[in-house]
């Protein structure tokens, strides 16, 4: 590919508390569309995303290079990275339980830009209706909507999204997938996802991790078509992908 990638991860190693969790991971994220990061539980997908946004725990150690355009991301504080256009939706939603929904959203507003409330409320009308409810009392799915809504308030150069459909009702899964699809039209997305149906719908490129290393990279749709490959990499035949 001749196009400059928006994100280039090279030889990324992460150690936490003595465990060598990522061992020389390299991949790139294309400037358009969704790149999906796949792998079984515990291979280090979340660890990878967190290393990119600079959220490796204190007792962890990161080596290698991560670049967005010409800029190195390592050793820059998270809030700078995010203000520079790196949006992050964490795995466990991490909404602020003690704040109301509206306050959660207000917090995500960035100075200097107009927050796109209309866009967010169009996608998730629930968030508008529940503005005064404490986020901690939202149902699991509602919290996920809030977490995604929060990053969509702003313009981003790259979105990192960790398992956004986990625990969502089928209908909402579809909706989230649609949202991400639309978002991906304007912003590249690096997505961690277990739901292969969602992957099939969204993903352009795929990176498969296995035991802390990259096991496969390439076109996502091709991956899903090749039953043998998906079976060996992900342990499921593409036919078994649940609808």
């Amino acid at each position, binding site marked *: 590919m001749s196009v400059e990638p928006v994100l280039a991860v090279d030889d990324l190693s992460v150690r936490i508390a003595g465990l060598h969790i990522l061992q020389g991971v390299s991949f790139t994220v294309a400037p358009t569309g969704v790149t999906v990061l796949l792998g079984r539980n515990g291979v280090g997908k979340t660890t990878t995303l967190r290393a990119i*946004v600079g*959220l490796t725990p204190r007792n962890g150690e990161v080596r290698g290079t991560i670049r967005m355009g010409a800029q190195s991301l390592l050793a820059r*504080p*998270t*809030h700078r990275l*995010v*203000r520079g256009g790196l949006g*992050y939706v*964490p795995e466990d939603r*991490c909404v*602020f*339980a*003690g*704040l109301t929904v509206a*306050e*959660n959203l*207000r*917090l*995500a507003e*960035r100075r200097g830009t107009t927050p796109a409330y209309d866009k967010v409320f169009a996608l998730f009308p629930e968030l508008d209706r529940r503005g005064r409810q*404490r986020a*901690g*009392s939202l149902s699991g799915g509602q919290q996920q909507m809030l977490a995604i809504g*929060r990053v969509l308030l*702003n313009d981003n150069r790259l979105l990192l999204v960790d398992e956004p459909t986990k625990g969502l009702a089928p209908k909402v899964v579809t909706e989230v997938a649609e949202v991400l699809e639309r978002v991906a039209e304007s912003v590249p997305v690096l997505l961690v996802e277990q739901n292969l149906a969602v992957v099939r719908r969204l993903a352009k490129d795929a990176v498969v991790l296995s035991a802390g290393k990259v096991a496969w990279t390439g076109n996502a749709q091709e991956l899903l078509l090749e039953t043998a490959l998906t079976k060996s990499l992900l342990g499921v035949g593409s036919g078994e992908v649940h609808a």
Partner: protein
Amino acid sequence: MSDVVLLTLTGLGLAALYFLVASGLSLVFGLADVLNFAHGLFLGVGAYATWWAAGNLPGAGSDGFGFVVAVAFGVLAGALVAVLVELVLIRPLYSRTIEQVLVTVGLSLAGVALLQATWGADPRPFPRPAWTRDVTGVLGANVPNAGLLLIVAAAVVLGGLLAFLRWTRYGLVIRAGVENREMVTALGIDVRKAFTLVFALGGAAAALAGALGGVYFGTVSPGQGGSLLIFAFIVVVIGGMGSVVGSAYAAVAVGLLQQFVNYYGTSGLGDLCVVGLLAAVLLLRPQGLAGKVAHA
């Protein structure tokens, strides 16, 4: 009648002092989630800095505008020390409550000892305007002016803090940051600054309490802050942690209760009643008067 007026107004003065001490504590404890046992040190710094300024700082003095300058200097010093403490000692320890306890306990021991090493253990007369020693007649009661000064100051601090929390974004950032600092940074906010600010405010409020406490007690001594602290803690807890308004209600309740029980009951009963009130409030409403229900 004049007894009741006198007890009420002096009780409110006492409440104002508690509130001034508690407000900074509540802010730091409730918002930054730091059980700050070094709060007494900030009080001491404020008091000693004011005392020092009145005697040594050009333009400052013990009366009129000079006194205002001296108090301002004290408040500034308190804020500065608090910021330094936050930057150097607390910053690496957020969300490690227990280590914070160790550090702030250490700080309060070392800080008070340092004050004592520098200025001695004995109380020093505190510079203060002459009118603060006088009384004002209210409905036949001789109400000390120092108490009235405290009430005014407490009202101003309460209003200021509420405005800060309600109308600035910092309030929101801080509340979110207490829950999950990481996630706040992941929204592109430099949460560290907000927390430093909380400490600065907490330190300033404490220093003001220290300076006005000096006016009230007429002296300043190294341990003065510590002795007020236990009631301030009680006020913070009764009021509901982190709720400035709650602290204000609780301070009034505690101040009046103590005053009236001490007058009509036997000695020592006032303190017991306050402790009893604390236990009762916590058992019936563990989140404190103004606290919200913690979610399961």
